């Protein structure tokens, strides 16, 4: 496994732990379909949460949030619908969260969480 994939892996791990600590229930991780991948699917009370995790070593190439553009956001919403169809579930309350993880491998990683974007 390449270093950058390892970093992403570790970030997703951290994000999942964090969401659980908020009282959410992790339903599925790394769900794939032809249109793309959802990092984390979770339940926050009645609401289905589609979570995208972005991990960076430093801010040298911009903040992780800046890597989530309008195209990616639209795809996350589409993937949310696709996940519901796939699991034959009706989830009227559905939202997309973005989690940014900064992890330089030395200090304690920092984590930022945006709820219900786009």
């Amino acid at each position, binding site marked *: 496994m390449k270093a950058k994939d390892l970093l992403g892996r570790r970030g997703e791990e951290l994000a999942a732990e964090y969401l659980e600590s908020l009282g959410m229930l992790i339903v599925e991780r790394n769900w794939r379909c032809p249109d793309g991948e959802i990092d984390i699917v979770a339940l926050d009370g009645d609401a289905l949460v589609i979570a995208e995790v972005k991990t960076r070593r430093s801010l040298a190439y911009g*903040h992780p*949030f800046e890597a*989530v553009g309008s195209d990616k956001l639209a795809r996350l919403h589409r993937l949310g619908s696709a996940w519901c169809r796939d699991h034959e579930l009706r989830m009227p309350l559905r939202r997309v969260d*973005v989690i940014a993880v900064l992890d330089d491998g030395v200090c304690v990683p920092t984590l930022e969480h*945006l709820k219900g974007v*786009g």
Partner: protein
Amino acid sequence: MALGRTYSVALVGLNGYIVEVEADIGQTLPAFVILGLPDASLNEAKERIRSAAHNSGIPLSRRKITANLIPASLPKRGSGFDLAIAMATLRAADDIRATGRTVFIAELGLDGQLRPVRGMLPAVMSAVQAGYTDVVVAQANAAEAALVPGARVRGYKTLARLAFDFGADPQELALDFEPDDEPAGDDSEAVGVAAPDMCDVSGQGDARRALEVAAAGAHHLLLTGPPGAGKTMLAERLPGLLPDLGDTEAMEVTAIHSLCQLRSSSLQLVRRPPFENPHHTATSAAIIGGGSGLPRPGAASRAHRGILFLDEAPEYERRVLDALRQPLESGELVIHRSAGTAAYPARFQLVLAANPCPCGKASGKGVECTCTPTMRRRYLARMSGPLLDRVDIQLQVDRVSLADFGQSGGEEDTATVGGRVLAARARQLERLRPLGMETNSQVPGRVLRGDLRLVPATTRILDHSLERGVLTARGYDRVLRLAWTLADLGSRDQPDANDIGQALSLRQVASAAA
């Protein structure tokens, strides 16, 4: 604190409006939105502000920034809002303390430098009038902004310095960045070139006299004559004869020049009457003002309180010449464009120069002239009657004779003639101020034949001409105006028959062409 509030100024023509800038930081993905009718250059502010803040050591928030410019219905253009938006955004992120009623006007460079903008003087004037006296501008604009009475101006070179003074954390700021001073541009140049002097003109006694009268009474002037007679040379010497501008006038003139200059470097008020000399291919937008979006001032407004010199006047498009009739009447130009209406002052003294015919040789006996009589008549008729109607002095200038040309020297210089002009202006002001006027050229015929009526013995020659139909009623008034100026120059309380005779002789072309 997720909301920051600062103030700036939007200029519409010479009128400025206070613009309130709100910045809000929303908890969502990074974006930068500017609301409130920004134009393209204002929309580019996003990138300038982001880079400037980053390079100053206080990067903007990594969230959605919404900047709102109030009132939203007023179209806003240009880069002068950069600083106000940046400060509002920094305040929203709690990087600096609240800025109160301070007005910010400056463009930002990517390195965090504060850059000067055009129209600083009218912007600060409007801010002070609206009760916003604290103004923060770029260092290069500070001297100009400080010309406004009652303004408390602070000039800064960098965003980091400014943020520091508003309580930003000095640990993070890039305070050691010191951009070089702007090279002092136009000012040194203006000092170096000496204004043309009257003593350079050899001979041309009539024309010199006409110039003096034009300066003293602020009369519009038409010079016709063959090429090489010195029409341009004479016209260029007129501004030197005019008195210095008063405080209010100087402010008006400086404000217009501040709008027109790209590199704003007016460190002091413009005290000398301006001289505008557009080329005869100029369009009406260039002379009157215009351009896309919000109209900018043209040559006529830049000549406000000074001289607008149209060389080769018949070569101008007739439309352009006739467009000057409105400002000649009202002293103001109102221009309508898609983005709004702008009113610029344009109270100028018009000086027209023309050849007598297309080939230019129809002076004196005109034996060398190759033009047909029709061509000749058409040529001067391009200057329309209503326009020439407003030109009090119409003088024929002939080529200087060898005798006059040989003995140069001994001619009066600008300072001597200017002294007489100044005295004549003072006499006019004393007489006309109770009537609400300043110069003889402004006096309407009603007053000339009413309050300022002369005894019939003096005006006999005029009355006679009117009776015989040599002179029109309008021409009659113009001669009276000139006669008053001649009397003022001669320190007489009223024009005498001699003044009337001289005044008649200053209208040679009118009798020949009109």
